[in-house]
């Protein structure tokens, strides 16, 4: 693992991207989630930030994890950002073209170690919302819906959510429970949520600020979000991603 190299020699001719704050923010959130993944785990990967988590895991931390997408693509090398779970860029790297039934069956059998999801909102119960938002004026804003999110949340052995910093996304009660943190059988449910500053676990059933990047302040992070969370007694300080890792995130996000 090398997160410090300043060189881009290894980028195989891909254009060196302009590193924007947005790229850094996404890389930080994704890296925080990727740290929770162990090598050789099976990952069920949602679209958006979860793909960057999968990419950084595979590239830097857990090179042998098995990436599975709801379209039925398995044993995927997630090298560029896919727009859908069936996009050609990941279909071309997949060693198995199965069906949607095949991969959801894996989830239901309990063979998926980690489900990687994003959502519009997450609440202190670990429930996720990807269906609709209620604005302050009471208007309802429709979102695309569950897709596989509900199913992944109930059926993966463990779910890690990965979210942007936006405080409106962290709430005491989601506007709509698309994906209830009600895991099947003895599964773990939503284990935690990674964001660009920190990682909250749900070990006690409520959000606890468990890990924080060394350039952030725990109290201010905790207070900046719109939910009742606590700071762990054993708060872990994590070095933020830099150099090679940020660059790879930039290339990943750019070449999509």
């Amino acid at each position: 693992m090398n997160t410090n190299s300043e060189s881009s020699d290894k980028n195989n001719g891909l254009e060196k991207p302009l590193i924007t704050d947005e790229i850094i923010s996404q890389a930080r959130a994704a890296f925080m989630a990727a740290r929770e993944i162990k090598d050789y785990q099976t990952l069920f990967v949602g679209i958006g930030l979860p793909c960057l988590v999968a990419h950084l895991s595979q590239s830097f931390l857990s090179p042998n994890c098995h990436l599975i997408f709801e379209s039925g693509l398995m044993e995927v090398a997630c090298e560029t950002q896919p727009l859908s779970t069936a996009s050609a860029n990941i279909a071309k790297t997949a060693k198995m073209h199965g069906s949607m039934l095949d991969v959801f069956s894996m989830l239901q059998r309990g063979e998926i170690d980690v489900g990687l999801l994003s959502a519009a909102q997450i609440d202190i119960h670990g429930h996720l919302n990807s269906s609709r938002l209620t604005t302050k004026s009471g208007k309802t804003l429709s979102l695309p819906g569950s897709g596989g999110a509900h199913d992944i949340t109930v059926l993966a052995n463990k779910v890690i959510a990965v979210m942007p910093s936006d405080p409106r996304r962290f709430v005491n009660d989601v506007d709509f429970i698309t994906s209830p943190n009600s895991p099947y059988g003895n599964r773990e449910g939503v284990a935690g949520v990674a964001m660009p500053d920190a990682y909250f676990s749900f070990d006690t059933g409520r959000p606890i600020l468990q890990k924080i990047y060394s350039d952030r302040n725990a109290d201010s992070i905790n207070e900046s979000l719109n939910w009742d969370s606590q700071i762990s007694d054993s708060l872990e300080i994590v070095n933020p991603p830099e150099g090679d890792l940020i660059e790879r995130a930039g290339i990943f996000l750019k070449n999509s």
Partner: protein
Amino acid sequence: MIDKVMTAQQAVKKYIHNSDTVFIGGFGHAIPFAIAHEMVRQKKHSLHLAKTGADIIFDLLVAGGCASRLSCGWYGNPGIGISNIISKAVASGELALTESTNFSMMLRLHAGKLGVPFIPSPILADGDLAGSVDGIKTIKCPFTEAQYQAHSALNPDVAIIHAQRSDMNGNVQLWGSVGDTIEGCEASQKIICSVEEICESEEILLCPHLTKLPAHKVVAVIKQPFGAYPSYLHDYYQRDEKYYAEHTSDTKVSLKSDEWLQTSVFDHNDFDSYLNSLPGTLLDQLAWSKS
């Protein structure tokens, strides 16, 4: 053998009836746009569309007035955002939407494929979708007494799909990412399929593992190169990413989506005419690349 080869015009006229439940094949890949264009052109209406995750082909069918009901686990423009057209049609009451989850829709189609009344699953026991989805009832497992949700079988009247090739008897060969396509077709009463190429049965015999649909249910085989455009077809052509990227803004106001229907569907007698209206080298640029 009966020659099942016909035009999209003939197939849609003969086999898709107003008020049918229609399964739309393709999943981020191999999406049957040519057939959908023809459905809009023929002003089919009151259809119940069923699918796991609904791509922008649903925008076309809803904007075209074909659908009165939509059952799905997701709808929108993958990786881009919400569907303006569907949101608006639901808000106005023109479209009844039953939101579910992708796996529940998959299980319902799979129960339809198996020919069983339902499949039990732990999903949709909790959460705000549980109260509003269709076709789910709580049951007890007779072995453990534990509670499950019975996801009832869905057997659409007709499935529309696009595939790489078929012989004239409906031995359809499809590969690449399939998503829910096979299950949805098997669950349906009949299948209308457009293909890039119609081949001899002898070629099918060289790779029978690629044949994915039961020929006795395939009622129409339509030769339509680029029939999945603007989506992609594995080993044939790439997706038109620009089209998808611009689609969401292109359909933000009704005026614009009317224009979209006019220039892409109503201005043409068939899909080839539409393809010919695309900028000169566009389809060439979409040539499949292995990497």
